[in-house]
């Protein structure tokens, strides 16, 4: 399966997001559902498979300094390496923006925070004193 990474020019709570973000996915990411068609803050990318189906999303919230990243994988597509793909793409996007650090906060509403934290540790994130998990952005030559 080839995965495709596409930036959303004006992210909105569209039908694809409503389909991917079930109750569990909202709890996992700490997001709240929005009215259909409402604008969604931050920079968003959708991940599609060869058939054009949306299989996940990654988003990045950059403000003064570093960037918080988050992602979601469609429930029926978990275990296929899509999360790692999104993480790699988000890191590349952060690198393109000159950002040196990315971090993720596992929300209190996450149904399995220990698993999520472990997954992030496996991907090089380190728990910081701030309660988040962060990693220095690897440059393409390091990755």
């Amino acid at each position: 399966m080839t995965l495709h990474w596409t930036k959303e020019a004006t992210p909105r709570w569209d039908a694809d997001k409503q389909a991917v973000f079930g109750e569990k996915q909202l709890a996992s990411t700490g997001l709240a559902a929005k009215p259909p068609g409402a604008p969604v803050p931050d920079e968003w990318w959708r991940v599609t498979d060869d058939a054009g189906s949306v299989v996940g999303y990654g988003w990045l919230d950059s403000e003064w300094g570093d960037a918080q990243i988050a992602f979601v994988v469609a429930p029926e597509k978990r275990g296929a390496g899509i999360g790692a793909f999104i993480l790699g793409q988000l890191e590349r996007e952060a690198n393109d923006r000159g950002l040196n650090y990315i971090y993720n906060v596992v929300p209190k509403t996450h149904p399995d925070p220990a698993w999520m934290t472990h997954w992030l540790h496996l991907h090089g994130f380190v728990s910081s004193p701030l309660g988040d998990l962060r990693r220095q952005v690897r440059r393409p030559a390091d990755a």
Partner: protein
Amino acid sequence: MTTADYSEKIPNNVDLHEDRRLQRALESWQPNFLNWWESMGPTLPTEDVYLRTAVNVGREGWAHFGHVAMRDYRWGIFLAERDQKRTIGFGQHKGEPAWQQVPGEYRADLQRLIVIQGDTEPASVEQQRNLGATAPSLYDLRNLFQVNVEEGRHLWAMVYLLHAYFGRQGREEAEELLHRNSGSAEAPRILGAFNEETPDWLSFYMFTYFTDRDGKYQLGTLKESGFDPLSRTCEFMLKEEAHHMMVGTTGVDRVVERTAQVMVENDTDDAAALGVIPLPVIQKYLNFHYSVSLDLFGSETSTNVANYFTAGLKGRWLEERRRDDHKLGDDSIMVDSLTPEGELGQTEVSALTGLNTDLRREYIADCEGGVKRWNRILADAGLPQRVRLPHVAFNRKVGAFSGIEATPEGEILSTAEWERRKGQWLPTDTDKTFIRSLMRPVHERGKIAAWIAPPRQGINGKPFDYDYVHLS
């Protein structure tokens, strides 16, 4: 208390002697700071420098001027006077008394904001450490060192907050502020723009005009914070920052003035041949520093910034002057975006999530002031050329326009076209080599490099030819 206590090892106006534990913790951090200053601070050896040292945080007479050996500079901790009646001015806690302690639920967010602000302060010292070797005059050299020591003091300001209010985690973060270094591969500074060396004095003036100005706006939003010690710290830092802005503003003034003067005297546009900086090169440096500084404000919309505002942690620029409910729950703002057809456009979002855009627009309006000044200098010289700020979509790496290329006029280009033409708008290797060729030190009293005009006035009423710096 407004007057600094200089009898203490660490000058302060926070009654540090009343908290022995905190005092000891900061005194144990002090040697690490001095080691950092020795290893990462200015490289040009000096005997002493005519520096401003804060002695009071009141409106009048807050600083003392005198020759000081830089290592002996009295870096201290100064907070603006406390307003006992201050209330939080925005967000869901609007109207409540300002916090004197960190609210538990906002601890991580506040610490993050303080760490990021703190990280920029030593970063700029590191970026500028080699500039002294090519200073165009002792006046400029002194200004560089003034900026450097005050950025060092701003680091102290943030470290004080970390030590005083964030316990062990704060102390660890304070150590990290000295561990990360500008340009380090292993532990770079947090903000990308603070990891590039400042290679020449034109870059220094542009940095202090555009990038330090971004810092001014970030400090301005933290000055509004409901966490009162942070607010008072930033209020005083802004007072010192005003000098840094002046260095950038008048630095570019003087470059433009000298170029215009030589062009008029010789009736030519070929300024480079006459040893001054051509206006198109000044424009390219302006384009670069302005566009990378726009990126520092982050993407057009941000969930985190909305949350910071609602929580009362970080306000808007001049929050008290805004004529709205200071909560923004029902307000909206138009932010930059790309249309589905890939054209430059705008989209309406909630005012809360658009706060990065709000701050960036305030900054842009301020930057226009510099352009007007520089164009007035050109007009007064009788020259038709003008400088200008490039379009907000130009050379952007962050936000809505990060995926496209655009000219300074805002015309979208293909990547190939951008690659072919970007040298028209951004400094090329040839431009940088030329600028570097002009960077020869002028360390004699009363003398100045040929590519820059002398200042209209000196520091603290002293003349331009004052002995501002004694070199070793």
